[in-house]
């Protein structure tokens, strides 16, 4: 039997994955050679993780074909993927904190093992690759970088041919990231392939041999990142074809209704982003949009402004001049603020509750027609619910369905409408049209613009740059918990935003800190 030598280690051909109506992957072709570090770039929702999960066997494609060294295969399960030699380091580690390094690794290995021998092997591998690890150390005592090393060593012990890294530097310090890059380069020199998922453009330029860029479930380019600039990569990632015009509404500058003053919020757990020195004024009649890649402090910022997490000082946030950094959610609502969180089900609405009950969820303290001396007023709630449903054309199967029975777009219209119906003085909305069909998205954006025209100060946190240019008067970018300057929407280009998203303004602050 003659084994045909093929150039590619893994080929994913015309991969399609459909979730309901959404084409998460829409005919993606990806070819990985042995010995290369291959970047997979794209915004959130571009289809990166869907593709990777299919490669790792955790999801099955709707259609498409995998070739492993030229031979067609189907990757039925993660176990099968590991058998092929595909290993993956997830962004969120799966380690038992109370066990030692060696015990954690032993748990992931198939079959029987000898802990003493395994410890020797771990020490050997970790030394060889410059990934210092003490097999007897207890995981709870280790830093995030060290924990990632455990995951990597765990993969290396299985002699992988293809190593998938899912945003590995998101949780690392710059020094730890440098060490990681050295290891990955070395693995590539040994002939292993690395699939590297990231949206940090500078590190992709520095590390990767080739980059596949995804947008809306499709491959938009295959490039050599070394020959690109961070700006050109950013443009490919977010799409240069979107209209940069922006419906600029010249507004007379009103008074500041929402003020953030040196807002600091320490991380209260792993994978929580620390907010650093955020200052921002949102004036009556304007929409300020916060752009940025997910996981850079958006939900933390929302929680801080809504009052779900309390701040250290009362004057870090003012609503209509009233300091409220330590006030509760409802006290802030009573000051005239309204909030729409990113997650519709389970945060903005209770899935198992009827729509009329979900009206009560955010309005019980500010709307006397809903609660009288502790008693729920069902007629009041249905009245508001009907008004919202009518104003926002919420489509539903029966008169008062449970929230979870609505489609994403209709529920989002309802959740947004519930707050807009109050005509709030300040509206803070996180990902206004995330996962929503185009029609509903247009309705919601129009409603936000109309609300601002009536004199409301709107702060919209969004990852969707199309949306931002459609609704925003001013734009700022959030990256690793730091907010950039704001720019008038007409005066900032996509490339500039892309650079800010990749952390251009942070560098400045590092320099400031160094010179200070």
């Amino acid at each position: 039997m003659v084994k045909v030598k093929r150039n590619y280690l893994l080929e994913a051909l015309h991969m399609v994955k459909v979730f309901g109506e959404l084409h998460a992957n829409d005919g993606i072709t990806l070819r990985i050679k042995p010995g290369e570090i291959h970047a997979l770039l794209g915004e959130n929702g571009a289809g990166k993780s869907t593709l990777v999960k299919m490669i790792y066997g955790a999801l099955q494609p709707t259609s498409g074909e995998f070739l492993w060294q030229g031979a067609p295969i189907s990757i039925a399960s993660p176990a099968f993927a590991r058998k092929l030699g595909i290993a993956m380091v997830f962004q969120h580690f799966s380690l038992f904190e109370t066990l030692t390094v060696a015990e954690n690794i032993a748990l992931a290995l198939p079959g029987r093992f000898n802990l003493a021998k395994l410890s020797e092997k771990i020490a050997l591998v970790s030394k060889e690759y410059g990934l210092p690890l003490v097999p007897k150390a207890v995981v709870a005592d280790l830093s995030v970088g060290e924990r990632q090393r455990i995951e990597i060593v765990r993969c290396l012990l299985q002699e992988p041919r293809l190593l998938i890294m899912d945003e590995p530097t998101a949780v690392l310090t710059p020094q730890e990231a440098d060490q990681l890059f050295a290891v990955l380069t070395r693995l590539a020199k040994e002939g292993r392939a690395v699939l590297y998922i990231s949206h940090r453009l500078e590190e992709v330029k520095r590390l990767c041999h080739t980059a596949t860029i995804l947008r809306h479930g499709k491959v938009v380019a295959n490039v050599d990142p070394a020959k690109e600039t961070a700006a050109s990569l950013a443009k490919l990632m977010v799409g240069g074809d979107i209209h940069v015009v922006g419906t600029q509404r010249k507004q007379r500058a009103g008074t500041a209704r929402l003020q953030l003053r040196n807002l600091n919020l320490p991380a209260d757990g792993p994978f929580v982003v620390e907010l650093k020195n955020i200052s921002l004024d949102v004036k009556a009649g304007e929409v300020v949009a916060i752009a940025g890649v997910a996981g850079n402090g958006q939900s933390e910022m929302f929680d801080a402004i809504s009052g779900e997490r309390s701040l250290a000082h009362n004057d870090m946030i003012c609503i209509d001049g009233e300091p409220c950094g330590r006030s509760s959610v409802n006290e802030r609502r009573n000051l005239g603020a309204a909030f729409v969180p990113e997650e519709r089900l389970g945060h903005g609405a209770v899935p198992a509750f009827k729509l009329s009950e979900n009206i009560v969820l955010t309005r019980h303290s500010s709307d006397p027609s809903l609660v009288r001396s502790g008693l729920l007023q069902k007629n009041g709630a249905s009245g508001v619910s009907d008004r919202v449903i009518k104003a926002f054309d919420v489509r539903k199967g029966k008169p008062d369905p449970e929230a979870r029975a609505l489609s994403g777009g209709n529920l989002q219209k309802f959740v947004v409408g519930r707050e807009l119906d109050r005509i709030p003085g300040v509206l803070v909305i996180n990902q206004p049209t995330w996962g929503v069909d185009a029609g509903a998205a247009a309705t919601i954006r129009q409603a936000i613009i109309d609300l601002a025209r009536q004199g409301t100060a709107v702060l919209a946190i969004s990852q969707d740059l199309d949306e931002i240019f459609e609704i925003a008067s001013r734009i700022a970018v959030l990256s690793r918990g730091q907010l950039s300057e704001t720019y008038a929407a007409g005066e900032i280009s996509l490339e500039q935003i892309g650079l800010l998203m990749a952390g251009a303004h942070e560098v400045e602050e590092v320099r400031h800190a160094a010179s200070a």
Partner: protein
Amino acid sequence: MRLLLEKRAERSRRMIFLSPLIAVGLTLVTGAIIFALLDLNPLRALFVYFIEPLTNSWSIEQLIVKATPLALIGAGLAISFRANVWNIGAEGQLTAGAVLGGLVPVFFPQWQSPLAFLFMILLGVLGGMAWAAIPAALKNRFNANEILTSLMLVYVAQLILDWLVRGPWRDPQGYNFPKTVSFSGWQLLPQFKLLPDSIGPIYINLGAILAVAAALSLAFLMARTLKGFEIRVMGNSPRAGRFSGFSRARTVWFCFLLAGGLAGLAGICEVMSTVGQLQPSISPGYGFTAIIVAFLGRLNPVGALVAALALAISYLGGEGAQVALGVSDKIARVFQGILLFYILACDTLILYRVKLLTNQSAEASAA
């Protein structure tokens, strides 16, 4: 061929009511199989167990006696479980209520006035609340698992009671039996005649009336008040609850104190009626059985009232079966356990429908 659970868009209203009935049906079938394996005639055994307790006025009276503590505790637990507060220690709270209320007859047996009666009831409720406050405080302060802490406190309470009745509180004239003095007069619950003698005299005590009142007012609390709304939100999605401005810690306190107070009330009512004194064992596990009552009653206080009657049958049936069939009355516990299993399993049907896939259709849906 395989089974597939397909998620429904909404909870099925029909299944909310059908699921406990299916569970009861499956329990009966399983019970018949167990009786058959014991070489008993399954039909006769089921008759003795489940029908006979309903055939005369004396046993109906007993049914209400047994159902009273189950309903009181079950209604409180239904609220707790709705809020995802897992109070498993109602048996201990019942005991604590009985002990604290028992102070009055033990130390002031001569105090015979309506005030003594009210004071005992009040102490009973406070005792249950105090015992429930421990797991609540541990939960809120240290995030200690309330399932474990409340359960372990059951044994602490029972051992305290055991020590008291064998030691300091023992009746000096009690021939060394481990018991306190017998309660009497105003230190017992008043009884009411439910039906005239011509039909068959059925007496109920004040506890049964309190149980109905508690169930009705809690049903109102859940359906019509902001507090009830808060409890339902916290149980359904805590994140949305926080967004709504509700506090998890406050919910934990409220649920524990409410359920603990009702369990304490059940405890003091038991020792002021059926038991009539403090002794090492004052409850055949009402606090645990009430967990099943809460679930069988759809975590609804009024539902718990109905479910309490159903579970009371299993106690009476167990006693009847011991006499008529010669099986251990522990079989009552077996039935209760099987029933809980089936209820929890059948509740899957509320949000899922079962589909049978043949091999061809399985492939078709995978392709």
